[in-house]
């Protein structure tokens, strides 16, 4: 027990003496939480619209003014020649062209209305499709307004949309839990592995190995500081989320911490396994990077798992972060309870046991 406490003390002493680690631990979560939510957004804004108005009627002007007034669009160009508008699209000064056909207003009343044509630059697929959707909505609203003014019949809305759990469809709220997970991956994934391989590189692990200290004791003393740091970082991140973005977890904080502890356990077990197989920090770095990449891109952190191909969806079942992404988002945004997330918690628990067993088995004191 005394050896364990001494090892633990030594680990903290080393972290404190390190010229870089303490700063990283404090600054990293703050910077990530302050900067990333502002830049990582799927909301499409500033779509440049060119309008080809062949109708020049009240209706077309009404459509134009609505587009101009929207915060999503900037009306950059109005013309009567489609080819000119197309030029703009090709040069990139316009993202979308809206063409209002001749006699649009007049034929609207007839049985054969000429449709409004929307042409979008879809190189940036998200911007193209989202921009198009917004435009369709905007024009449809204008047209139904006009129709209502002419024939004021009491109609009920055919479709109403309500975004539950994230009412303003705020992408930030969706991303903040994901960012917290990235912090875990980096702090509890990379640093313990690097710290162990660092001891291999400077030979100190050899010196420890000839003492009667057991491998479990040594490994635990190596991990516990990073578990504590991981939870500290989570706390800082949650505070920033609350103070800066006003995002308060809808569910219980205890559930969040429980999930986090399981996840930290899993990731550090994984990181230990990688460390056991590497001899240099460089190797560790690259192997960890490879896996963290997969974790970040395939665990539903950035893109929904449901939209992946089926084989990829099956693959995500063996990625532990997938379950934690589910847990953290559900608790944070929906207020889901521990009982409802039972399956994910059990899965995460299994991974925690699996990876730590693997780490223990692959750790060799003798070669």
């Amino acid at each position, binding site marked *: 027990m005394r050896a364990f406490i001494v090892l633990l003390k030594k680990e903290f002493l080393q972290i404190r003496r390190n010229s870089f680690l303490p700063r990283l631990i404090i600054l990293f979560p703050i910077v990530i939480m302050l900067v990333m939510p502002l830049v990582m957004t799927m909301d499409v804004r500033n779509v440049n619209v060119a309008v080809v108005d062949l109708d020049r009627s009240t209706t077309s002007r009404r459509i134009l003014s609505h587009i101009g007034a929207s915060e999503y669009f900037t009306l950059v160009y109005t013309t009567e020649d489609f080819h000119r508008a197309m030029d703009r699209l090709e040069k990139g000064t316009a993202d979308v062209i809206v063409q209002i056909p001749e006699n649009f207003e007049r034929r609207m009343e007839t049985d054969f209305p000429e449709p409004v044509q929307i042409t979008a630059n879809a190189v940036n697929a998200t911007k193209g499709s989202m921009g198009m959707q917004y435009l369709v909505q905007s024009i449809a609203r204008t047209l139904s307004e006009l129709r209502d003014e002419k024939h004021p019949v009491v109609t009920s809305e055919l479709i109403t949309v309500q975004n539950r759990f994230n009412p303003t469809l705020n992408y930030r709220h969706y991303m903040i839990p994901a960012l917290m997970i990235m912090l875990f991956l980096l702090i509890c994934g990379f640093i313990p592995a690097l710290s162990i391989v660092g001891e291999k590189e*400077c*030979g100190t692990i050899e*010196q420890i190995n*000839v*003492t009667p200290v057991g491998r479990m004791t040594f490994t635990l003393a190596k991990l516990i500081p990073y578990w504590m740091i991981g939870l500290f970082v989570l706390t800082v991140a949650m505070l920033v989320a609350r103070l800066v973005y006003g995002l308060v977890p809808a569910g219980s904080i205890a559930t969040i911490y429980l999930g986090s502890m399981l996840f930290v356990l899993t990731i550090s077990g994984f990181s230990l396994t990688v460390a056991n197989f590497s001899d240099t920090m460089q190797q560790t770095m690259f192997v960890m990077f490879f896996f963290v990449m997969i974790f970040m891109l395939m665990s539903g952190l950035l893109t929904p798992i449901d939209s992946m191909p089926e084989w990829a969806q099956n693959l995500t079942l063996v990625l532990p972060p997938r379950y934690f992404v589910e847990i953290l988002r559900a608790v944070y945004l929906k207020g889901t309870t521990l009982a409802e997330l039972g399956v994910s918690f059990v899965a995460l628990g299994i991974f925690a046991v699996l990876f730590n067993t693997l780490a223990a088995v692959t750790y060799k004191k*003798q070669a």
Partner: protein
Amino acid sequence: MEAIEVYHISKRFGSVQALDSVSFTVRPGELFGLIGPDGAGKTTLFRLLTTLLTPDSGSAKVDGYDIVRDYLAIRSHVGYMPGRFSLYPDLTVEENLDFFAALFGVTVEESYDLVAPVYKQIEPFRKRRAGKLSGGMKQKLALSCALIHRPHVLFLDEPTTGVDAVSRSEFWDMLAGLKQRGITILVSTPYMDEASRCDRIALCNEGRILGIDTPEDIVHRFEERLYAIRADQMFPLLAQARQVEGVMECYPFGETHHLVADSRFDVGNFVQQLSGLDGLTIRPVEPTIEDVFIKWMKR
């Protein structure tokens, strides 16, 4: 019971046979030297005896414990100082010593009398980080840490490599002091001149032990006549001397060449044959451990 018993131990790394059926014993309280060049297998042997490696075949006992079966017991009874400085460079001298004491479940006070002769020399720098110590001081700290749990057997892997001549001599004095206290010491060194400070030495090369004896007796095993020769031009001398009848070996040895002669060798004849070389001198010399090593290595 011997302090260290090694029976036909072998270890292979890929295509390299690091140790090839090595056997020897070290008596309790003995200062035993493993003398050999780089690649002789000295470090592998240390790593086996300190339970960091397991042998491919053969067995060994340290302090009566089997290195495979009783590896845990060995770890609390031996001290190991690897060839490379491997203490925590970001901890201070004092912290390193306290740390290793705690890992062995002892306190610095309990072992102070044993460590003191070594540790006293670096105690004024106890607040300095280990990484900032000079080479000789690092080595003294490493020895202090290896001694902190009062080991019965001490393994020192090339402790004097890269250390200046004065510190080297001091270090061997310290080892003599530890021997007085009954600690068995197995030390390796590539320096033949340090061999004379050991009770017994084993000359080793390419994974094999060439011979074991006391430093005095080992040179007596060199029965041939030995001469030191020099001339103004040393390289032609080497080539020509090897042609002379009765010359078994001739090899560079410091500022001279050493010449091993058999019964047919005649000094007068030799001088006459090499009269073309300016400044030729030849004189009989006593063999050194290095001469024995070269002879055995070529066998």
